[in-house]
């Protein structure tokens, strides 16, 4: 795992000192809220419905136990005893006091964390696959490159006042679990004809008001030129991205309005100047960063497989956990375990300080001190030996964290919505909770299989509703909260944006509507092996539209 060297440490502590000064100036009235806004945003501090909200970056989703414990400490000391993990591999604290923020940032800095660039019109925290560095299907561990991008983008002097925020996601696996095609820039590992690994670059993806699937702007950029290429894209965007309308300011609109070919030509022109220049990444530096991410000291316990069928009979709950919450590891005898933050009826993504401490302990004992935060608002223990899986399950169960629903219908992604968010049109957490209770029965969930429901409280789409197999979007119509339902979205390499099939529903009707969609699917699927999204692709809208609105 990446460790700060003296330079990184000094960098972050200077930044904390800088922001402390800005906070002091705000409290003393020397800075107006207008002037303070861009500064606090760049330090991850939002003004929300009830209070300031502090967003802390978990770069490429990787955390050590020590860091997780510090998050627990902050939740306890400065907040109301919990934190909220988001779809951007961040954690948000909803109740800090402005005057405490410098202290919180100093605490974070002591464990090599920060809130730099988690908001504002700059390059945001780089996100990646939660199984990076562990997954069996991976071409390359994307985290070293993600770390290099993090460094390059931190307080970039040229790109701190972009037209709009800018998000980069990166995946090292052909099975995209980081939704790279829905980011401003998406990077997907690629092997070229000569067997070298590099990056396919997608640009102009995004969700929000105008969802767009990223388009490939370059099929292969080698590591050494990647920063120069990214700088070229950012420069074109900084210069030509729209600034007249905040809703049209993301790069996706630029790409859409100008056309991929135009943007590509501009980027290539820019790249022809910066390529081979000061941003060229030497192999030695890549090796140096790589070394931080070298695999832990795996041990051969002799256990190389688990008889899941047998476990299912012996202990159905554990059996279900094995089926849903483990993921194939590159190393024989190991697996990655998903720790669901979606207990039935709970607020998705919330973790109490006690739970954070418990997970930290478990990671320390069973996962080489490593943890991941997934964009699906769960945690991951990336390297668990099969021989210790039972013990891990036991420990998670004791902490109330053994919900075995990863990937199932109750594993929703849900934004904070009207309960916390100043921008919301509608509540989203209560909707998620209703759905979760409705489908609580494990047998029912198993029958339904893999199905991703994603819920946003407004068109900003923090809950990724566009790419939910079923998406739910809160809108406001004549003073009442309505929920629009979309079907067929997909955030993976088979990217698709969900379709609206008809008018919205009031909150009470939503669980029924979802149930009707699910029933329609089960009735018409070819077999239990055909998941919802595949059935939708085969069947088209009609049966689902009928399920929602009848055939009137």
């Amino acid at each position, binding site marked *: 795992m990446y460790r700060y*060297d003296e*330079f990184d440490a*000094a*960098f972050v502590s*200077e*930044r904390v*000192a*800088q*922001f402390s*000064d*800005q906070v002091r100036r705000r409290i003393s009235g*020397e*800075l107006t809220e207008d*002037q303070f806004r*861009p*500064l606090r945003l760049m330090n991850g501090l939002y003004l929300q419905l009830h209070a300031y909200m502090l967003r802390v970056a978990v770069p490429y989703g990787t955390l050590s136990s020590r860091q997780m414990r510090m998050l627990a400490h902050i939740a306890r000391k400065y907040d109301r005893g919990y934190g909220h993990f988001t779809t951007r591999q961040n954690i948000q604290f909803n109740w800090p006091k402005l005057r405490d923020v410098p202290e919180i940032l100093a605490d974070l800095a002591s464990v090599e964390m920060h809130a730099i660039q988690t908001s504002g*019109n700059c390059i945001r925290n780089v996100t990646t696959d939660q199984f990076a560095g562990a997954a069996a299907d991976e071409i390359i561990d994307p985290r070293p490159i993600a770390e290099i991008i993090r*460094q*390059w*983008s*931190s*307080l*970039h*002097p*040229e*790109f*701190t*006042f*972009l037209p709009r925020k800018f998000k980069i996601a990166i995946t090292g696996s052909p099975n995209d679990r980081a939704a790279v095609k829905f980011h401003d820039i998406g990077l997907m590992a690629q092997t070229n004809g000569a067997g070298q690994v590099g990056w396919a670059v997608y640009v102009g993806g995004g969700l929000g008001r105008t969802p767009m699937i990223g388009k490939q702007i370059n099929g292969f950029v080698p590591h050494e030129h990647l*920063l120069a290429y990214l700088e070229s894209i950012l*420069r074109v965007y*900084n*210069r030509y991205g729209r*600034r007249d309308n905040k809703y049209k300011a993301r790069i996706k609109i630029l790409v859409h309005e100008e056309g991929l070919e135009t943007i590509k030509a501009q980027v290539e022109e820019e790249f022809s*100047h910066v390529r081979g*220049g*000061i*941003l060229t*990444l*030497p192999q*030695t*530096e890549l090796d*140096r960063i790589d070394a931080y991410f070298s695999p832990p000291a795996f041990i051969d316990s002799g256990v190389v497989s688990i008889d899941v069928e047998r476990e299912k009979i012996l202990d159905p709950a554990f059996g279900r956990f094995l089926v849903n919450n483990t993921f194939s590891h590159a190393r024989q005898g190991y697996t990655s375990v998903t720790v669901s933050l979606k207990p039935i009826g709970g607020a998705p993504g919330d973790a109490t300080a006690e739970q954070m401490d418990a997970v930290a302990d478990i990671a320390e004992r069973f996962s080489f001190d490593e943890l991941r935060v997934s964009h699906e608002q769960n945690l991951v223990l990336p390297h668990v030996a099969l021989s210790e899986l039972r013990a891990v399950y036991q420990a998670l169960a004791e902490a109330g964290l053994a919900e075995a629903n990863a990937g199932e219908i109750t594993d929703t992604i849900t934004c904070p919505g009207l309960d916390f968010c100043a921008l919301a049109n509608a509540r989203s957490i209560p909707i998620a909770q209703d759905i979760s209770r409705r489908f609580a029965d494990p047998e029912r969930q198993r029958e339904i299989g893999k199905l991703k429901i994603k819920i946003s409280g407004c068109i900003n789409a923090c809950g990724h509703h566009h790419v939910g197999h079923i998406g739910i979007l809160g809108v406001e119509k004549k003073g009442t909260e309505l929920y629009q339902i979309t079907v067929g979205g997909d955030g993976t390499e088979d990217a698709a944006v969900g379709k609206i099939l008809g008018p919205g529903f009031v909150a009470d009707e939503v669980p029924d509507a979802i149930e009707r969609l699910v029933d329609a699917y089960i009735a018409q699927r070819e077999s239990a092996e055909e998941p919802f999204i595949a059935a939708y692709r085969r069947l088209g809208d009609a049966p689902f539209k009928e399920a929602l609105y009848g055939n009137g």
Partner: protein
Amino acid sequence: MAMADPVPSQGPDKLRALGIVALNGMFDEMDAEGVLRQAAEDILPADLALVSSFGADSAVLLHIVSRVDPSLPVYFLETGKHFAETLEYVEQLKAELGLTNVIAVVPDPADLARFDPTGELWETDPDSCCHIRKTEPLEKVLSGYGGWVTGRKRFQTAERGVLPHFELTSDNRIKVNPLAYYTHDDIEAYKHRYGLPDHPLYHQGYKSIGCAPCTSAVAEGEDPRAGRWRGLDKRECGIHFDFNGQIAPTRKQAGKTKEMRLFKNGGFMADPWTDWVEALDPAEASYTHVPLDVFVAHREAFIASPHPLGLRVDPGHRVEDVEADMARFSSVAISFPAFGDGRGFSSARLVRERFGFQGEVRAVGDILADQVPFLRRCGIDAFVVANPATRQALENDAFAEVSLYYQPVGTRAEVPVGTRPFLRRALADA
């Protein structure tokens, strides 16, 4: 960077312009003495004069004159404001080098009586003071010659980086710069070789010597000319500054910009530049930042104009459209109408890093204190800001700055620790 158009559309005829190009081609390699001999004997016989300040570096050129032709007219601008040491030095050099034709040029007493009766004009309006004490008298003298010799050198200031041996002025005369290619070390070596006397003030820290009130000592490592007009943005007078080499008139509105709005070199100072006003005639524009689109629309006229010009880059302007003309500008103003609009950051880097522009690049407009360090890294070296908090921060140099940075930018020689790890490492290992 080449100037786009060595042949201005008005002014010198083409033949002479081409002649200058040819001259520079022929004598580029020639040493200083050869250049002067060529000028004095072949190109402008009996039609060439020299103007000397008898300052810190003047001895070298005067020594070369004494070897080529001790009777060459040498004019000395007796502004009435010189150090006594300078006047002594004039006599000393005259005697030691055997110069027979040193002529003092004095200001017009009527002008002095009218504009500078108390002798304190330099304090309030150095531009006008220079005008009546230097430019006017010199113009009178030089108008009688087909050309003159200067002691200017490429290394002296950034603006002079491209100085050739021969220059054509817009009124068809020739400026000869025998020392154009001399470095500071060449000068020192030359003085040493011939045992030339130093200006008496040289060893007191005065590395560039003009009139007494306007000259101060420079610190070790500072630009030798930093001591001239210290605290003001005045660096060059028209005679040197001017694109076409013409002696430029002093700015008419000199008095208007006395408000200390420009922050540069660590302090606020009067801004010698004025803002562009709509529909200004290109031929009239002088010490003005011309908006990029206006420049492009009237490019010919601006190129032909003899006046010092700056470039104003607004958000949305494509700086690459004037890349070839950058040498025409003495200053670039990047405007920031709203602090949230970061386009100027890219423009600044392109101007500095890609086009290699060496002159002043100023940021103008709505700038937050916290943006100043970023702007500096993008190549900005001067600020014109209204925001009181930003002005205060500049004044006190009080930036809660992150002095470390991960990503290199192209031009600034950033402190070793302030770069990406792999660059740091390379240095640390070395």
